[in-house]
């Protein structure tokens, strides 16, 4: 029997492990990937103070700190199932079965796809796949790519590809369909792009953030958006073009794009081919909560947080005894917020495991989560605070009847 088991060695899981181990708990961290760090590994961007956020270094630092504290880290170990019996959690991995009283799920996020005709061809990958291939494994996903979907993550990764010397032919929108929502709508995309304007040394976007405060201006902005696109880091960003097909015989050879009007409708006869040997699909992120779902934990659909969220409180407890969540499983945010949530979860677990006098530290950790959120450089959803408030309300609603019993 272990004191604490943590599933996921990303920034949330590792920070939780460190917090628990610092209080003297025995911790096992399980992850199916071959390196510790989760999705932090691939991250690389310049921070406002001019320093670089280097995910590989940050991951290595967390990993070393955990090892120094005696945390056991089992990599290459997928978890298939978890069960709860008699106050105890059983964890089934591909190799063995473990049990614990305190289980933290820190399984992070997954990418949502955008279906495009031809998207099963080899060479088509999620935008995160290209990020990991480039920054973590140091293999080029291809020589020349096209990115479908313009959002915070794909803009950041486009720049990372450029840094590694990979040509990005263009970024364009997906063709509108019943499945694409607002990602195919130029006005909506422009709106959300304004939230990355600080990352973009582009006159248009800079101008845009000043000018585009109201809807009317935004509509004008899209209407007059140049058909050739606007360059960000030398990459044409085409909000008035949609990819209608990916072509190639045995693997990607290129994409067909067409001009769209300001409502996202295709203008007939404008199709043209763009050659490329890889294509990235950027449909955004959603919390990977499948293990939490197996427990019967209540969920809520909260779009501001990226999807279905397992109910939890600010101390990272779920309504189920001994089950905790932290990081992107609780909503899509950057790695620093995930790490701060992990620290909070670790302290909460230590308290539940019998350590006294931790309330002050836990309160402080919750404060740090909020401050980190407010100072975030990358905000995946502009209304993340609203989403967090909704979770708090749901928690209150849920525990109120229990309290009055």
């Amino acid at each position, binding site marked *: 029997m272990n004191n604490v088991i943590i599933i996921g060695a990303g920034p949330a899981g590792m920070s939780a492990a460190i917090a628990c181990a610092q209080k003297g708990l025995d911790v096992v961290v399980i992850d*199916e*990937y*071959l390196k510790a760090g989760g*999705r932090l590994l691939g991250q*690389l961007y310049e921070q406002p103070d001019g320093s*670089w956020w*280097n995910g*590989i270094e940050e991951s290595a630092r967390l990993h070393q700190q955990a090892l120094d504290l005696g945390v056991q880290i089992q990599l*290459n170990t*997928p978890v298939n199932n978890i069960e709860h019996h008699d106050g105890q959690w059983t964890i089934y991995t591909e190799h063995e079965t473990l049990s614990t009283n305190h289980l933290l799920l820190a399984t992070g996020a*997954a*990418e949502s796809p955008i279906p495009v005709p031809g998207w*099963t*061809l*080899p*060479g*088509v*990958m*999620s935008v*995160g*796949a*290209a990020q*990991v*291939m*480039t*920054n973590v*494994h*140091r*293999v*080029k*996903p*291809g*020589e020349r790519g096209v990115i479908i979907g313009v959002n915070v993550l794909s803009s950041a990764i486009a720049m990372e590809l450029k*840094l*590694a*010397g990979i040509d990005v032919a263009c970024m364009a929108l997906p063709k509108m369909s019943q499945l694409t929502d607002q990602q195919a709508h130029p006005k909506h995309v422009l709106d959300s792009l304004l939230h990355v304007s600080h990352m973009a040394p582009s006159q248009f976007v800079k101008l845009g953030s000043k000018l585009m405060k109201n809807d009317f201006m935004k509509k004008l902005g899209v209407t007059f958006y140049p058909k050739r696109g606007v360059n960000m880091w030398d990459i044409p960003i085409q909000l008035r073009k949609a990819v209608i097909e990916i072509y190639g015989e*045995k*693997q990607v050879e290129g994409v067909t794009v067409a001009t769209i009007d300001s409502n996202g409708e295709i203008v007939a006869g404008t199709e043209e081919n763009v050659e490329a*040997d890889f294509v990235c699909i950027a449909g955004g992120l959603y919390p*990977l909560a499948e293990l939490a779902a197996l427990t019967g934990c209540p969920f809520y659909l909260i779009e501001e947080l990226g999807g279905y969220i397992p109910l939890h409180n600010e101390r990272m407890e779920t309504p189920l005894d001994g089950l905790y969540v932290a990081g992107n499983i609780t909503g899509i945010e950057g790695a620093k917020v995930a790490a701060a949530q992990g620290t909070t979860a670790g302290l909460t677990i230590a308290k539940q495991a019998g350590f006294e006098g931790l309330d002050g530290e836990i309160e402080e950790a919750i404060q740090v989560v909020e401050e980190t959120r407010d100072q975030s450089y990358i905000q995946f959803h502009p209304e993340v605070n609203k989403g967090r408030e909704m979770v708090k309300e749901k928690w209150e609603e849920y525990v109120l009847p229990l309290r009055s019993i």
Partner: protein
Amino acid sequence: MTQRIVDHPILGSIEEKEQVSFTFNEKEYYGMNGEPIAAALLANGVRTLRHHEEKATPRGIYCNIGHCFECRVTVDGKQGVRSCLTPLQEGMVIESGGTLPTPVKDWSAKNE
């Protein structure tokens, strides 16, 4: 042919790792010890990892982090191995794969 990113303006030079040999569909290749099989193959210009069991359409990596199972191959006789997160080792015999191990749906159908 795709290539390794040997130098990087921020991340520096690529980490030196021991070179190992392996086979994929009976052809010999070289890769770096411990890197994911899919990365080693891509560095050799190989994108197609398998063909769809029924429709025979070619498939390569999609998510690259273990979620989609599109990259599954057979490694030293073990089927359904995700090549995007399985570390490469000297002498591995890798194949595009034949029949499937129990897919999730059959497994859960039997156990419901």
